[in-house]
């Protein structure tokens, strides 16, 4: 987009003409990336655009087919990550790679232990180094704490310490904010700014545009495997940046013409659920939720505050202590899960791999899962493969699942298409109530728009939806009401018309608790 002027600053990383081919897959082609030393440089692009492939190239996890890598002015070739580390590059992975049962110090030195001549670990020296790094990072925890006691934000800080300990001056952070609440995001960037002030360079991979615009110095946009723009936050706004990323008009979660219905589809009253072990505090405490027909009720909350338990209780997968659950006025709390599903309850699970799909099974078996009582797909006790396959094809068509056929195993699909298949299956039986947990997590913008459209369409036809999401924009855009869950309770009800992500964040961390009614 703009000519980058060198501003007198040294270049930390230069990638020219990087091309990486995988059979059948768009990876990277003709990538141009210039990162100035002492800056936070954002790499933005949708899921599958090739950001991670590019960073793996820079970190030596695989070699490019074409192109050159220059680090601090000298041409390099990384055979392994070890080479990249030696050149001062460190990577903080999206999924933390920490051993829970070791202390912070032990985790940080793991694999790079300072040893004395007899092979014993010199903990004193390690501690001294870690403490000086912690000071520069502004971290305040005790390095002898077990990692299992740390929160998500602190674990991330340990990951950063790990790469700093190995002498990294150029840090790659792969979607570091995906797991953080807004307040933790602030803290993370404060940390990163301190690092940059001390001469480090940060390459920041993200698709969250607000934080990119707020905190980063420069931005490179990747689309369909190649770099399409290089810009700065002062030159773009949110919308133009998003359009650069997608290359076309944006999906928009907001807007509805129909009205919320009068009748209550899902009613949860006074629900209490015991904790996981004797003496633990309640996992759910006095939950009251009502979802009307044609209504989407959003549940906001940091993961682990009872959303998962709420879904499992409604489905009958956990036995509740007290309270009632009803669908369309019919009491459910004493009937089996399978019967609840047959009465019109549907569930898009939190993790499609763990609870949504049979990865090795063909798509038609996946769309049949949980629908064995559907008379249109069976002949008495026998399954009708012909009917199931036809039904699967219609789900594939309706939800735009990109696949060669209904016979391929589910693992062969991309994440977005797997999710569309799960959403399609759950909507296919025309449910009365849908529990949708992170319906668009980890899917690309195109699939996200398709799933949002289907949710809105079903809502307009009277479906009641309980939407659990970590994507605050999705919650604000789709919901008719937003409830905040904290510590197993519903602590606030907000109007999406006036709610902002920052507001939600305040409630989600329990800093503030409002009127839940």
């Amino acid at each position: 987009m703009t000519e980058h002027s060198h501003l007198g600053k040294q270049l930390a990383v230069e990638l020219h003409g990087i091309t990486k081919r995988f059979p059948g897959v768009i990876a990277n082609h003709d990538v141009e990336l210039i990162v100035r030393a002492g800056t936070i440089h954002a790499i933005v692009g949708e899921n599958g655009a090739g950001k991670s492939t590019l960073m793996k190239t820079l970190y030596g996890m695989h070699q490019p087919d074409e192109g050159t890598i220059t680090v601090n002015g000298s041409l390099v070739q990384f055979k392994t990550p070890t080479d990249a580390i030696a050149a001062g590059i460190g990577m903080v992975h999206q999924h933390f790679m920490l051993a829970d049962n070791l202390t912070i110090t032990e985790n940080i030195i793991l694999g790079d232990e300072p040893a004395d001549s007899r092979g014993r670990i010199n903990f004193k020296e390690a501690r001294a180094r870690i403490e000086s790094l912690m000071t520069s990072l502004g971290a305040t925890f005790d390095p002898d704490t077990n990692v299992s006691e740390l929160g998500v934000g602190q674990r991330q800080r340990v990951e950063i310490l790990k790469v700093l300990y190995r002498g990294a001056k150029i840090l790659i952070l792969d979607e570091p904010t995906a797991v953080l609440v807004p307040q933790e995001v602030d803290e993370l960037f404060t940390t990163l700014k301190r690092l940059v002030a001390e001469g480090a360079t940060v390459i920041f991979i993200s698709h969250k545009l607000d934080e990119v615009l707020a905190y980063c110095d420069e931005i490179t946009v990747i689309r369909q495997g190649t770099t399409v723009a290089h810009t700065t936050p002062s030159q773009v706004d949110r919308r133009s940046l998003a359009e650069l990323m997608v290359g076309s008009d944006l999906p928009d979660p907001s807007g509805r013409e129909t009205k919320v219905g009068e009748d209550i589809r899902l009613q949860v009253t006074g629900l209490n659920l015991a904790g996981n072990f004797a003496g633990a505090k309640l996992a759910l405490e006095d939950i009251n939720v009502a979802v009307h027909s044609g209504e989407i009720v959003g549940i906001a909350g940091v993961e682990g505050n009872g959303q998962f338990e709420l879904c499992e209780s409604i489905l009958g997968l956990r036995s509740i202590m007290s309270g009632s659950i009803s669908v369309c006025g019919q009491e459910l709390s004493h009937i089996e899960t399978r019967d609840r599903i047959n009465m019109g309850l549907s569930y898009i699970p939190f993790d499609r791999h763990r609870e949504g799909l049979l990865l090795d099974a063909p798509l038609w078996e996946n769309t049949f899962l949980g629908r064995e009582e559907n008379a249109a797909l069976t002949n008495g006790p026998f399954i009708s493969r012909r009917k199931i396959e036809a039904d699967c094809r219609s789900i594939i068509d309706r939800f735009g699942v990109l696949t060669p056929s209904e016979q391929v195993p589910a693992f062969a699909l991309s994440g977005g298409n797997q999710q569309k298949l799960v959403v399609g299956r759950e909507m296919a039986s025309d449910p009365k109530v849908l529990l949708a947990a992170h319906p668009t997590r980890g899917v690309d913008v195109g699939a996200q728009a398709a799933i949002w459209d289907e949710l809105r369409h079903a809502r307009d036809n009277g479906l009641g939806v309980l939407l659990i999401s970590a994507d605050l924009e999705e919650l604000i855009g789709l919901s008719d009401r937003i409830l905040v869950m904290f510590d197993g309770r519903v602590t606030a009800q907000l109007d999406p018309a006036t709610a902002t992500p920052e507001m939600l964040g305040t409630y989600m961390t329990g800093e503030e608790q409002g009127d839940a009614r």
Partner: protein
Amino acid sequence: MKSQRLQRMAVTSASSLLAVFVALCICAVILLITGKDPIEAYRTLFGAAGDTKVLQGALNRATPLMISAAAVAIGFKMNLFNIGVEGQMRVALLATAVAGAAVDLPAPLHILFCLVVAMATGAIWAGFAGWLKVKRGVNEVISTIMLNFVALSLVAWAFDSFFRVESTTGSLLVKTKELPTSAWFPDIVDRRLNGMFFVAILVLVLFYVLVWKTKFGFQLRASGANAGASRVTGVNPKRMVMISMLLSGALAGLVGMRALLGDVHAYQNNLAEQQGFNGIAVALLGRNHPLGIFISALLFGYLGEASGRLQLIDIPKEITTIMTGIIVLAVVIINEAVKRWDDRRIQHKAALALNSVAVPA
């Protein structure tokens, strides 16, 4: 689109064939090391295929293998590894021998009675392992192995203390009281091939229909493939564990019936020995599919029957036992490697197919 299914089947069969071939090669090396001529050995071993008597013997040997492999496979389909088929079979053998000799029924009913007793006792014995897993979370591999020892000792003790009958013909072999002839499973074809062979075929057919064609079978496979995913659809994983252990045990009870009802007609100590364990190998080679199990059981049955011929050319017949072991090892290794390769192939193919119809997202 059927072609995709055929391709997967072809890949699967090819990897099993490869495993057998690799095992033959390794055994050839072993033969060479011991100074024998592998070509002559294999010519003798497979040359016996022309002999009807050998073939009938092979089918007889394949009969219990098919059933015990089906017992193991139904567990595998639910992600359960029932190593206890041997013990379940042994308990069922003694129970059936005793109960069968104690009643007097017309022929078809008497046989049916024996089969039902065998299935029930096998199921009960396997049920212990299922119950331990469901109620106490005991891994079924551990519990079925332990229950094998319990079964072997218990049966040996009960047989010795209560049910042995001294031989009237002066033979040293002690047996239980002989079953009345109405409980004998008849031989067919030249009075050589035992009719239990067709029971085994029926078991495989029913196994196929149950697991691949019914709603219950779908839930069983889904629960085995991803317990979490089927749990949220309301399939109770504990119930599935219990049912599949009971089914597996019921089949295990049938394993020894060819030997008991079709051959010896009384219980003796080494009756049908190892047939429960050998089923594991057959199920692995046959990839838990009825057709694969059928072919593998025939192969193993044949190797067992023809191995005697090797002794005629001064090669110990134990080479076929070694071969069986190597086949199982090779199958496990090659299947895993082939699966990884095939998964990648399918993924690439899917990606290619999509790129060629390039839909802009």
